C-alpha cells in the first residue's frame, strides 16, 4: 500500500520524514506528489534504503488551463515516475482523462469540478486513474465535509459501473496528517466503501509505479517488443 504526499516545500515535512512515518504506519511506499511550482529536492534511493520503504518520484501538475497543463506534461513526463494533474475544473478534468500520458487525475471533485459518465469512460480508455481524495473527510467538518462525502460517493457509483481505474489517498501536507492504512480502511467502511476498495486504491499507486518504471527503464523497447534470447551482446 502506498500513500501520495505533498513534501516540503509544498507541504510541511520532508520526504524523509514522510518515509519514516509511513514505514512506521505500515505503508510499503510513498509517492511524492508536489505541485509543479514547489518541487522537492530529495535522494529517493538513500531515503528508501534508510527506512526500508519505496520512494516514488512524482509531480502533480497545477495549471490554469489545458494548454499550460499540456506543456507541463511534455516537460515532466520523462523525468517523473508518476504524473498527476491537479483537477477541479471541468476543462482540466476533461483534459486529464483524455491525456494518455497522465497517470492520475487528482481530486476531480474539489471546488466546482464534476465527473460524469463521459469523463469516466474516457478515463477507462486512456488508463487515467481517478483519485478518491480522503483529505476532505479527514480534515473538514460540517457542511463542507458532507459535500465531500457526497461527491466521493457519486464518484464511486460511476467508477464501479464502468470498472474504472482509481487510486485512494489521504493527501497529507505534513507527516502529522498521515494516517495508517487500517485507519483509512476503517474510515472507508464508515463512508460506504469496502476496505478492499480502499486497499486496492492504495495498492494501485504501487502498481502504477512499477509499470512506469518498467516502461521508462532502458530494457523496455516498445509495448509487446522484447529482446530475444538469441541476440548476443557484442
Amino acid at each position, binding site marked *: 500500500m502506498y500513500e501520495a504526499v505533498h513534501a516540503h516545500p509544498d507541504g510541511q515535512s520532508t520526504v524523509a520524514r514522510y518515509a*519514516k512515518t509511513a514505514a512506521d504506519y505500515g505503508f510499503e511506499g510513498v509517492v511524492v506528489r508536489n505541485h509543479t511550482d514547489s518541487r522537492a529536492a530529495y535522494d529517493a534511493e538513500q531515503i528508501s534504503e534508510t527506512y526500508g520503504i519505496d520512494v516514488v518520484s512524482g509531480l502533480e501538475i497545477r495549471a490554469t488551463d489545458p494548454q499550460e497543463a499540456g506543456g507541463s506534461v511534455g516537460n515532466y513526463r520523462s523525468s517523473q515516475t508518476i504524473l498527476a494533474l491537479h483537477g477541479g475544473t471541468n476543462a482540466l478534468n476533461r483534459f486529464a482523462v483524455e491525456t494518455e500520458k497522465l497517470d492520475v487525475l487528482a481530486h476531480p471533485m474539489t471546488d466546482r469540478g464534476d465527473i460524469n459518465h463521459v469523463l469516466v469512460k474516457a478515463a477507462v480508455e486512456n488508463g487515467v486513474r481517478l483519485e478518491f481524495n480522503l483529505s476532505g473527510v479527514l480534515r473538514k467538518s460540517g457542511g463542507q465535509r458532507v459535500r465531500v462525502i457526497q461527491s466521493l460517493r457519486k464518484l464511486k457509483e460511476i467508477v464501479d459501473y464502468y470498472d474504472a481505474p482509481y487510486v485512494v489517498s489521504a493527501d497529507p501536507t505534513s507527516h502529522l496528517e498521515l494516517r495508517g492504512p487500517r485507519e483509512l480502511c476503517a474510515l472507508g467502511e464508515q463512508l460506504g466503501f469496502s476496505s478492499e476498495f480502499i486497499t486496492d486504491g492504495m495498492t494501485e499507486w504501487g502498481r502504477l509505479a512499477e509499470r512506469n518504471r518498467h516502461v521508462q527503464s532502458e530494457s523496455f523497447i516498445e509495448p509487446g517488443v522484447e529482446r530475444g534470447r538469441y541476440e548476443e551482446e557484442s
Partner: protein
Amino acid sequence: MKHLPKHLQPRWRYLAVELESWPDTSISRRDFQRECWYAAQNLLGDPGSARADMTVIRFEFTGKTGEAIVRVRRGETEPARAALSCIDEIDGAPVGIYVCGISGTIRAAEENYLGRRGQDSEERNVVFGNEERVAVLRECVADVRLDEAFAGATDLDYDLA
C-alpha cells in the same frame, strides 16, 4: 448502586494510541476526550457514538509526542478507529494520530504497544535548506523551527551546526 453481575458487565477493548504534534504544544486529557467525542459524533452520529462509547483512560502528552489508551465497546473498534483518524487538531494544534494496537486489558495494551518511543528531545542548531535554524531533535527525527511554522525532517535532511 450494586454493580452488575459479571455476565452483564460490558465487554471493552482498549485502543493504544500514539499522538504527535509540533514542539511546545500542550494537550490535556480533557481536550483529547472532547475531540474524541466530537469526532465520533461527527462521523458516527449520536447512536454510533453511544454504541462505541469512547472514553480516554490513560493520557500522557509531553512536548511533542504522547500516548493514550481509549476504551471502546467490544465490536465497535473499527468505527472508533475511523473516528480517531478524523481528529486532525486538538485545541488548534495539528496532531498525528495512530492506533498501534488493540487489547482486551489496559495492562496488555500498555505492555505490548506503549512506551516504545524515546521521550528525550533536545534543542540544537542545525543547517536546514542552507540556513541555520533551531531544531528539536528526538532520536533521528527533527522538527525544524522556520520563521512562522515548523518543518518535519529527519537526520538525512539537516547537518548539525
